[in-house]
């Protein structure tokens, strides 16, 4: 029992150990290899890293919920883009003209609503058809992306509003807005998963769906709520990012779903559901961003970064499998 608890602790804090390892490696390697004068673990550099983690990180929180629930959502990248298009385009709609700068919260609300509606569509289809979420969201990934292109063709949608940029670039206690949003969302989702009945049911449904049905949990509506949550978070991520940049290309957000899933899996959430934690996902997001930034720091190009991250992901899952074995007496299958 003692050993079991220790094993569990090692596994749960593994991602943080990995982050520390990365920090040490890049600080030392950066000392010899980097072209820049600054140390890797420079305070400003770390703040920037947190800010850059936010877009993927906010979506990853939602993905953690959906994956613990035993589902997956591949449409988050497209939702991210479509929410941005709605937000930036709606700011110039004539009916909102009298609002002046008050159009900003209205547009934000519209973008968030878009995300929730898209999530609800995914959830509703999964609920009513019983088709696997992987397939449903694979379809909606293509479909939602189609909507983005229908909106403005190949053209970017842009809107420059300095008030909005000011809000997006504001700092509180030295932390930029995206970082703050990421941290607040992490806390909120953590509270939801660990302290509320809905949150505990997320685990129960993902762990043993039949047991949940037998216990009278209405699994369909329950899963739909989680798809609405991830849709909302994908849109929120989009709001945070595009409030600062003010311009969205129809191809933006592509492959986000894969980065998000990578971060969630690195954080130890089980692909089959029932197990996972948003704190560990937060760690997973930071770990990936550290790798990207760190490898850039020591002069590797993007292709190299992808290769390394991919290899690490497989290595982590292999290690996890080894840790889960109960010893030599275990069944060989």
């Amino acid at each position, binding site marked *: *029992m003692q050993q*079991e608890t220790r094993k569990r602790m090692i596994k749960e804090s593994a991602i943080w150990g990995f982050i520390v390892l990365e920090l040490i490696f890049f600080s030392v390697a950066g000392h010899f290899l980097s072209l820049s004068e600054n140390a890797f673990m420079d305070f400003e550099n770390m703040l920037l890293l947190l800010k850059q983690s936010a877009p993927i990180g906010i979506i990853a929180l939602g993905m953690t919920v959906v994956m613990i629930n035993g589902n997956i959502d591949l449409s988050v990248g497209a939702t991210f883009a479509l929410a941005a298009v709605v937000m930036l385009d709606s700011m110039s709609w004539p009916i909102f003209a009298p609002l002046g700068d008050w159009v900003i919260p209205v547009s934000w609300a519209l973008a968030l609503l878009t995300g929730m509606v898209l999530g609800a569509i995914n959830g509703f289809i999964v609920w009513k058809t019983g088709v696997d979420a992987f397939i449903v969201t694979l379809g909606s990934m293509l479909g939602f992306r189609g909507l983005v292109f229908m909106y403005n063709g190949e053209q970017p949608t842009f809107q420059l509003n300095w008030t909005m940029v000011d809000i997006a670039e504001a700092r509180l206690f030295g932390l930029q807005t995206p970082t703050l949003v990421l941290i607040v969302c992490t806390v909120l989702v953590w509270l939801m998963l660990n*302290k*509320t*009945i*809905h949150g*505990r*049911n997320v*685990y*129960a449904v993902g*762990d*043993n769906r*039949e*047991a*949940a*049905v*037998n*216990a*009278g*949990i209405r699994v369909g509506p329950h899963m739909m709520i989680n798809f609405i949550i991830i849709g909302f978070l994908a849109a929120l991520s989009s709001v945070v990012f595009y409030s600062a940049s003010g311009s969205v290309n129809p191809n933006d957000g592509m492959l986000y779903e894969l980065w998000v899933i990578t971060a969630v899996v690195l954080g130890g959430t089980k692909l089959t559901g*029932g*197990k996972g934690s948003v704190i560990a996902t937060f760690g997973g997001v930071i770990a990936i961003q550290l790798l990207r930034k760190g490898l850039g720091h020591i002069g590797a190009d993007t292709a190299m970064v992808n290769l390394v991250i991919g290899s690490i992901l497989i290595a982590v899952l292999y290690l996890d499998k080894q840790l889960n074995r109960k*010893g*030599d*007496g*275990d*069944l*060989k*299958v």
Partner: protein
Amino acid sequence: MSVHDQKPALRLEGIVKTFPGVRALDGVSFSVLPGEVHALMGENGAGKSTLMKVLGGLHQPNEGKIFMGDEPVVMGSPMDAKAKGVVFIHQELSLAEELSVAENIYLGELPRKSFGRVDWDRLYADSGAILKRLNCGFGPRTLVGDLSIANMQMVEIARALTVDAKAVIFDEPTASLTDAEKVVLFEVIADLRAQGVGIIYISHRMEEIFRISDRITVLRDGAYRGTLNTAETDEDEVTRLMIGRSLDMSRNAEHVETGDVALEVRGLSCGKLFQDVSFEVREGEVVGFYGLVGAGRTEIAETLFGLRTPSAGKILLKGKEVSIHSPMDAIAHGISLVPEDRKTQGLVLGMNCRDNITLPQVGDLTAGPFVSDGAEIAIFDQYRDRLDIKTPNWRQQVGNLSGGNQQKIVIGKWLSMHPEVLIVDEPTRGIDIGSKSEIHNLIRELAKSGYAVIVISSEMPEVMRVSDRVIAMYNGKLMRSFTADEVTEDNLVQAISGLSENGKVA
């Protein structure tokens, strides 16, 4: 208070349930009195589970009514049924392993505070009290995944105690319980009964039914066959109602001439699972392994079959030491394992009968680059006739066969590999009693034709019926070996139980 002048706690009247192409229940009526244990019996497929699912709100009946007391009720959902006081304890464990014991007990109805928060204090206090009542050796904060199967079953039972139950359905509750744990379960049932709760008890095991039930209702082919007062009937009458004929349930009395030692095991150990196990099996002999769940019997079989790596000890086949690292090695040395779980370990349910039988040797049955259909069918025909497998033709998917015939397919598969040692783990689990004796006879015949057979079973009558020798195990250790003449229920129970050390179930 006499049982007869009471109003039923729960009454089902003329329940009809059809599924596409099947009339699963055909006008079944059934009632439970408060404070009564009413056993529901019938072969697999007789409709017991369907009836209980109707009662538990998982299925809606096409016709018929359910009454609680005098009021007609509709069970719209499992929650609905539970709220009305009908609690269903499932046969298959229905637990979320990553959650705590307390969360599992109150799954679907966690106590609530403001903003939909979980009231942890109340949750732990309430579930702690229930666990105490059940005399469980673990606390409400334990993760269910860390518990033994038997303890998981106790968690399942604890769920029944969360509401003010009027009727509790136990669906094969003892399937994974050991004899010592059964005692605790029966105490719980007696306790519930004393509180005036009606108990519906589904089981295949006659001795349990006769031990705890007041009345027995028998179903056959979805139809009601009659209700008997337990005190006024016997096993034979119940069996006749169930299958329409009597059964031979005698114990093994034949003495076979055994040949040379086929398999010898010396000091075999595997970590904490079992230690220092030595025994031998001769050609033509059936050796039964009896013990509690977790005593290490299945693990020994898995080690002999190369699925686990032993930490010490020797395995000798016909006097020669062999090392077995994988099932391939085991098969090559003539060891075959009919595993515990037919459906997940023994068969590919979606494949047809022929392909399942030839699965281990299909690589050798080739004509040029292709699989030779003719050779495969020849093997299938041979074992279908030899084992009397009832299937329309070889194209039938095994998933559609009855449990007994599925088990024969698994046995046939290994016989076709011409083994010397055949290990059969829980040969009749989940098989109805008509087919059970067929499998038992088959095992006896196999031994007679020269195979060395090891039978692992949790059912005492089964072990006593088929074995020439019985080996009793407790907690990973070999306790004692009996010949068929020596063995009695009493000395066997003594040998396999650790009850003497402490009365509590660990």
